[in-house]
């Protein structure tokens, strides 16, 4: 355990490792399959950023809700979304979580509290807020965690949502996955003021910045943010996780030869990789058990996706209206 990090017991570490490893391996397998053209969907991989979704979701209850982005594989899996249905969705199959109509950018699993994700930056944030409003009315202490990237903080809708959530003390945790790039454009070319936390605090929300590789610290921050929301003692909170995208914006490859960023930039992040760090904190036996279980789970998801039928052509016109 790193010095100063909030304590997580062995059981929690194993749980975190399982989610981290699942997310990492799922996407590595997706990347490996990609060239076969079996996956009929643009993929925005979370590889390198898994700790954010895993740490936040580990602080949530099963009946809590998350909203995500087009880079949403990690949030979906970390919240407990069905891995088979997700892989089938990527393959464009009828058994997919969105019946093959959504693809990688529109993953959804309502039964496990995963609101549908969106390809339009920032657009799920107010929807998560509306969901939080309904949960507050429901009065069962459920909360929403809304994931979005640094790019979303350039959309007016985010600030509109922060204001309204704070005004109405809605039970929503805003989680900014700041990976430093909007597609290929660095923050230096986009933000006049680099201190996001100061901007958020001006809207009346408690806000903190966390190392996005430190899954234990992320989990601890989420636990303390969410607990008072459940009792209505406190409204929304904001966490900025500083992280790094290891692969290209969209697609399975690295892109350090493209010219907009260097491989040297990756090195400290790779050295701080949450998957490797947590792996080093659990017993070899636990590690082996988790990894073999996850490999089987991912393998099953691929088999399920491959064996599932595509939707009938008549499905084109279903679900236009409820």
């Amino acid at each position, binding site marked *: 355990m790193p010095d100063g990090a909030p304590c997580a017991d062995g059981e929690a570490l194993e749980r975190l490792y399982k989610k981290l490893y699942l997310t990492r391996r799922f996407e590595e397998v997706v990347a490996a399959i990609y060239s076969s053209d079996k996956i009929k969907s643009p993929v925005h991989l979370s590889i390198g950023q898994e700790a954010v979704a895993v740490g936040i979701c580990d602080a949530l209850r099963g009946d809590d809700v998350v909203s995500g982005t087009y880079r949403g594989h990690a949030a979906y899996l970390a919240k407990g979304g069905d891995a088979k249905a997700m892989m089938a969705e990527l393959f464009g199959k009828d058994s997919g979580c969105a019946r093959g109509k959504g693809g990688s950018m529109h993953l959804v699993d*309502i039964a496990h509290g995963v609101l549908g994700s969106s390809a339009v930056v920032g657009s799920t944030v107010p929807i998560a807020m*509306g969901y939080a409003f309904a949960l507050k009315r429901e009065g069962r202490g459920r909360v929403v965690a809304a994931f979005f990237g640094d790019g979303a903080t350039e959309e007016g809708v985010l600030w*509109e949502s922060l204001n309204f959530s704070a*005004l109405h003390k809605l039970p929503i945790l805003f989680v900014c996955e700041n990976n430093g790039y909007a597609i290929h454009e660095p923050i230096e070319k986009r933000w006049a003021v680099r201190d996001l936390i100061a901007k958020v605090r001006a809207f009346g929300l408690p806000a903190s910045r966390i190392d996005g590789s430190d899954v234990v610290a992320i989990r601890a921050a989420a636990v303390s943010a969410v607990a008072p929301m459940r009792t209505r003692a406190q409204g929304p909170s904001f966490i900025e996780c500083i992280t790094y995208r290891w692969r290209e914006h969209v697609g399975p490859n690295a892109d350090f030869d493209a010219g907009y960023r260097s491989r040297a930039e990756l090195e400290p992040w790779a050295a701080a990789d949450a998957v490797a760090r947590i792996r080093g904190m659990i017993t070899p036996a636990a590690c082996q058990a988790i990894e073999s279980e996850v490999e089987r789970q991912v393998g099953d998801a691929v088999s399920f996706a491959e064996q599932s039928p595509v939707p009938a052509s008549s499905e084109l016109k279903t*679900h236009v*209206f*409820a």
Partner: protein
Amino acid sequence: MSSLNGRRPVGANGAMTGRMLRYVDALAEAVAQEMERDPRVFVYGLDVDDHKRIQGSTKGLLERFGPERVFTTPLSEDAMTGFGIGAAMAGMRPIHVHIRMDFLMLCMNQLVNMAAKAHYMYGGTVGVPMVVRSMIGKSWGQGAQHSQGLYSMFMHVPGLKVVAPSNAYDAKGCMIAAIRDDNPVIFVEHRLLYPTEAPVPVEPFMVEFGRARLMRRGEDLTIVGISNMAVECLRAAELLADAGIAAEVIDPVSLAPLDVDTIIQSAEQTGRLLVVDNAWTNCGASAEIIARVAERPVRNRSIRFERMGFAPTTCPTTPALEQEFYPNPSRIAAAGYRLVRPGDGSWSPDPRRAELSYQVQFRGPF
């Protein structure tokens, strides 16, 4: 209002009973009855709870249902639209109110990219049962950004329903149907319709979407009038009657879904179709209606078409120009006359009769 024949209200036992009620009061009554029936319904939007209550259309709701279910918002149309979508996905029944339709341009991302698509792109696992109310303004300097009838933008997008009732009866029945609908419904109102009265049943009833209303029978010409233009077309039909021309007037009521069959049936009988929109003609509802009539699979006779709508300009404020911007009963009647008697282009309605038919215009101050 000439007649509201054609359809019977659901739950009203057939008879056209009820008091004369203003359009604005019919809206408020419909929402109040649904809020009473269904605790999931709530009303929100800038000014829904102020002393003016959206020209009176949310009158009484705050007192009866409290600030938990009737509340204002910051001027954050984008986020507040998404807010309603999220609440709807969670099982609530939001009614988002905008005092002008022009402001819906600030909601387009959420309405088009999220509300319209959520049910489809999430494989049927979620629904967005949400009503978006907005009002079209006209006259007394409403001008460029308080006057637009932008519903055809929403008609274009699968997954949205669009209704534009032209009388108090349909306002109540469509509102109740919209609230009970499991899909996002763009509910289009017109400011000048608010004080108009029609017989409206006291009890709740639904006006089914996708069924046009035959407002007036006639065998010489079919006129389709959308939103406020339905009323202007009825006035034009009176003027045409002076010239011995019997115009049939149809109000589509709902634009998406669109009941084109009723229009085709009438136009096949009269052989002449004039579509008068409360919007521009370019890529508008009138274009869609005429295209669908032209595409009809069975053609028993040829049909002559004409469209009218806003002048292809921005709406000016000065009355001197504004009166040239809108179709009016006199011009509608003249166009109808030319369709029926193409060889005789000189007719126009008696100016004094035409003046009597003109709509009472809104006057300030606000």
